[in-house]
């Protein structure tokens, strides 16, 4: 497992370097003309984008793995549980109704929205519901949050809210500043560091909630911890980059192949795989025709949907066989 961890880390570093220097041509040209401006371009424009792609991907992978372990369900993830939609709702409320510009305060609104969505899911479905109940409750929360977001945008004091939220909420890393990247990634990194400390407890949950409790890990406290930390990490990232689907669902699935099925030990590999996936996706959207921007969130959804269906069909087959 440590060998695959090293391999994933190396792959992520290489991809991040590629992401930072793509496209290379203009960068070299600018360096010949004005070296100071070239380094400014690298640190002020490209670095936040690379950091956000890798960091948000890692957050989706790790929170997805933690939520799946907590709900004992391989289909739980930030998007399926409605927490991404809740975070978007919180961020829209903060940005257009409270007119908050400070990225860290906005991240707080995002975290609040994600936390409310997850708390709603726990109330509706409970910790150990069957897949159908979990998915239906998640869909209901995502739809409600989506509708509320649209309503808040439509009635927002600013008449341009709808238009300029498009770029933001669709999931994109274009034109984010370093302070914005810090507002998303510093709280997210703290939350993820605290989540990793729960890896052992989440592994023991695989033996059932009662066994985990008999070993001194209270399932209710653990669930609240996972929910709060996931909400902070997802909320902060969504408030800067918008919602991005399917990475948080698929990365943990791949990570458990590395962790031997252990849901807790999958946390770190899931973060690495999530980061790799999102950096790759953000490299791919640059293949769009010149002058057109494809939000990376659309790409992950287009690629992720068939994989999700394949996963669901696989689960159904296992249940009926």
């Amino acid at each position, binding site marked *: 497992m440590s060998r695959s961890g090293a391999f994933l880390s190396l792959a992520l570093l290489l991809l991040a370097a590629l992401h930072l220097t793509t496209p290379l041509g203009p960068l070299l040209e600018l360096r010949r003309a004005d070296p100071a401006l070239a380094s400014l371009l690298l640190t002020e424009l490209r670095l936040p984008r690379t950091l956000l792609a890798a960091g948000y991907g890692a957050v989706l992978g790790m929170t997805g793995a933690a939520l799946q372990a907590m709900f004992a369900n391989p289909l739980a993830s930030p998007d399926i549980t409605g927490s991404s939609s809740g975070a978007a709702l919180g961020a829209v409320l903060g940005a257009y109704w409270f007119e908050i510009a400070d990225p860290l305060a906005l991240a707080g609104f995002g975290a609040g929205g994600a936390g409310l969505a997850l708390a709603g899911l726990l109330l509706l479905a409970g910790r150990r519901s069957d897949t159908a109940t979990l998915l239906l409750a998640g869909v209901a929360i995502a739809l409600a949050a989506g509708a509320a977001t649209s309503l808040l945008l439509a009635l927002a004091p600013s008449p341009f809210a709808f238009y300029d939220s498009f770029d933001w909420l669709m999931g994109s890393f274009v034109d984010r500043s370093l302070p914005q990247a810090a507002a998303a990634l510093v709280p997210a990194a703290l939350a993820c560091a605290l989540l990793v400390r729960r890896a052992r407890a989440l*592994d*023991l949950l*695989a033996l*059932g909630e*009662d*066994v985990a409790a008999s070993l001194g890990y209270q399932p209710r406290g653990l669930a609240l911890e996972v929910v709060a930390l996931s909400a902070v990490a997802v909320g902060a990232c969504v408030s800067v980059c918008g919602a991005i689907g399917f990475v948080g669902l698929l990365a943990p699935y791949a990570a458990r192949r590395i962790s031997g*099925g252990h*849901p807790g030990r999958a946390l770190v590999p899931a973060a690495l795989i999530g980061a790799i996936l999102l950096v790759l996706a953000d490299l791919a959207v640059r293949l769009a025709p010149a002058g057109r921007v494809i939000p990376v969130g659309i790409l992950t959804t287009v690629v992720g949907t068939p994989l999700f269906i394949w996963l669901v069909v696989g689960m159904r087959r296992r249940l009926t066989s």
Partner: protein
Amino acid sequence: MTPLLEARDVAIGGRLQATDLEIGSSAMIALIGPNGGGKTSLLRALAAVEMDGGSVVVDGEDIASAAPARRPHLLTFLPASRDAVWPIRARAMIELGLANSDPQRVDRLLEELELVDLANRPINRLSTGERARVLLARALAPCPRILLLDEPLSNLDPYWVLRTLQLLRETVRKTRCSAIVSLHDIDRLQSFDRVLLASSGRIVADLPPDAMLASRELAHSFRIEMGEGGWRVSPPADRRSSP
């Protein structure tokens, strides 16, 4: 001599009345009772899974305040559920029961429970009976002082029912631990040293196997009686007239 396990006033609201229990070492104790009588609640309370007051002390240590790394050495709890969501290999599943990695111990358990051929199969691809053996091995792995096993014999074929009882007896003798085993099959009580009967959320009788089988409490709780051809359902009139 202080008992190995000492429970004082353990209770779970609505399901288990305040209960005291003392268990010595090297004992195999059966826990029987009608459905909903409180067997599982008693085991859960003793394992500190759920407790609305009271205390459980094992080998002089209070369970509720013992650290997670210490608990598996004091007691392990095997729930009746055999559900498994994650594709964890059987060997790794047994390792989860250990606070510190001990491959030799896992190998021994795999051999004793004849799981060597299944060691690398994901647990969610095993049959219910096979899964039951893996989960039992997980509970046995840390050599706890107290084993709390909720229906470990259900889903097992006759060979494995007998073999499991034999294995528990060997474990109890070798490690001087004690096991509390809930079960439904009253024909198996002779394999135990002592029998607890739980009914209506409390322990209504605590007797050696023979005395338990002959007791009024058992007949009354289960609404069965011993006839010439074996156990049979008590006539309804009898059920009503009994106190």
